[in-house]
């Protein structure tokens, strides 16, 4: 009997260990290949990180434009999306009557569930022509052929894509605040909005911030939706300033993920282009890893956590929260 117990225990432990093996293998394989750009192809690190020409076939692998593109797209998407997301979270937890609250949950789940390629398609079919029209109107009837493609379209698509992530995590954070906070504030004579602004949002700020960081992670790793609308020009910065009107333009540009997508199939194993792609992938991997670490830190600092107890961090809560609530309603208690 004891032996059987030990056997089943180790089978379950191995299952848990598989996750560990997978993550180590990913870092190992991507890392080993990434390293070769610098050891086998002798690219100088400063040329890789700060070079602005990405032409692997000509031996030039400067990834600065791509890294800039990824960061600019992510930062702006988060800046636009966060206020809207927090607003919708506040609507759901504080303002909405019960029917509206119940209605918003499937809305958010559907927004999460729409495949990213569909977002890309919509961006390509609706958003890009719209932006091209606006460009044409602003510049007096003339617009270059690639008008509409670029960082603005990418930011708008990403904004919508990360909105459900930030919103659901903010809803969790706001929903887990003790009811006493609201009551105390209202008892002091504060209006609903004063309560929200001065009490609830500050109290839930660490949870909201976790959501923002996870939204960043989703935005920087997003590939297909961005690839459809960014124009994939690996040699042009996302924003360009000029001395003559219109002073600032948003030409077609590219990001790390888009370049991974477009260059990988053509790259021959062992060539500079191939190794450089793995280096790009490793940069992305490192960024997403750091975001996970930061989100753990932030979540651990929160005063009111959604589910107390050990080992449950905001990140786990966040990604899977909408599900957890669906199950809580329909599934085991």
């Amino acid at each position: 009997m004891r032996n059987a117990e030990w056997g089943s225990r180790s089978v379950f432990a191995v299952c848990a260990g598989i996750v560990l093996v997978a993550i180590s293998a990913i870092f190992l394989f991507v890392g080993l290949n990434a390293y070769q750009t610098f050891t086998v192809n002798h690219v100088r690190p400063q040329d890789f990180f700060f070079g602005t020409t990405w032409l692997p076939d000509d031996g030039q692998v400067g990834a600065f434009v791509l890294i800039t593109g990824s960061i600019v797209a992510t930062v702006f998407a988060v800046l636009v999306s966060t206020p809207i997301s927090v607003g919708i979270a506040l609507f759901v937890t504080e303002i909405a009557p019960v029917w509206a609250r119940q209605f918003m949950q499937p809305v958010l789940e559907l927004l999460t569930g729409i495949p990213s390629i569909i977002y890309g398609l919509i961006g390509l079919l609706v958003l890009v022509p719209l932006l091209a029209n606006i460009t044409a109107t602003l510049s007096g009837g003339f617009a270059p052929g690639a008008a509409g493609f670029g960082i603005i379209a990418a930011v708008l698509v990403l904004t919508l894509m990360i909105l459900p992530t930030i919103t659901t995590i903010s809803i969790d954070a706001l929903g887990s605040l003790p009811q006493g906070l609201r009551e105390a504030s209202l008892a002091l004579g504060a209006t609903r909005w004063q309560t929200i602004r001065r009490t609830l949002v500050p109290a839930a700020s660490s949870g909201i911030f976790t959501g923002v960081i996870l939204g960043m992670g989703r935005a920087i790793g997003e590939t297909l939706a961005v690839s459809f609308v960014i124009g994939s020009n690996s040699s042009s910065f996302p924003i360009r300033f000029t001395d003559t009107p219109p002073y600032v333009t948003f030409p077609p540009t590219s990001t790390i993920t888009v370049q991974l997508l477009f260059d990988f199939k053509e790259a021959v194993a062992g060539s500079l282009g191939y190794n450089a792609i793995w280096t790009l992938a490793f940069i992305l991997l490192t960024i997403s890893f750091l975001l996970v670490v930061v989100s753990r830190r932030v979540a651990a600092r929160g005063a009111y956590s959604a589910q107390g107890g050990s080992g449950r961090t905001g990140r786990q809560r966040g990604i899977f929260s909408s599900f957890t609530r669906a199950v809580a309603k329909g599934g085991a208690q």
Partner: protein
Amino acid sequence: MSAIAERTPAVSPAPEPRAVRRDRARRVDKVMAGVLWGLAIVLVGLLASIILYMLVQGLSVLSWKFITAADLSGQYVGPEVFNTFYIIGLALVICVPIAMGAAIYLVEYAKQGPFVTAVRFATETLAGIPSIILGLFGFLVFVTVFGGGQPLCTPNAIPWQICYNGFGYSRLAGSLTLVILNLPLMVRVSEDALRGVPNELREASFALGGNKFKTVWRVMVPTALPALTTGVILTAGKMMGETAALIFTGGGNSPINGWFSLNPFIPGDTLTAHLYFLKAEGTVANATQIANGTATLLILLLLLFNLGLRYLAAALNRRLAGRRA
């Protein structure tokens, strides 16, 4: 708390009459409530218009033949529909037992320690890795290293390289990549389901002399089954929307003789991958039309999965656990 309490009585140098401030606060409150309502309505409108737009674009293309038939010129998506469900099914068959095992270990067996901390951290990290990176990883491991006919299989190959006429771009490689991508979600879902089992049931099982394994197998898993089932469907829905991880692993079209076969070692593109190939390569006649039809089909499947999930969760709960939802 104290910080909030100190900040609240904001004393301005020349205090306005109380009534003025109160009226303004009330007005601001009304306006902001309106703004929040507006945000929510705009969001709902946006979602509705996305779904409607996709439906209108491709509904004329959809027909039973379009969804089920297959031909060489690629005018129908029968093979893609088959591949989608096949690859998801295969991935679930591999993913669910592993995730269940891991969740059972974490919930029932593990004590807090370095191993558990490491597993949790690994799960979170894995959940945060962009799917394109998992696609590249899947290509490297499942397509190239385990793959057949690749130039890497040379006499001076690296020792751990397995050289057999294996999979290459294949449904199996795609499935395995999806498994890694969705393990964190599935582990999480299983964990939540198991943690939802009332403690009294476990105690009763132990009191009747059940050992740990029996308790897990006969009491916890059956009780958690409704939540597990909804979790599996949720994961399947996520898998259905995945593209970036499959482009470099699942490959393009299935060979003619393998369209509706169960062979996991042949290439196969899912609906999402098909959509990408149509847009990126576009060598098929009527590519735009077919892409629109495919996108509409995807949206319909998504609605089916999401709305079906709610209904199923309630129904299963009534049937299996004897509770009212």
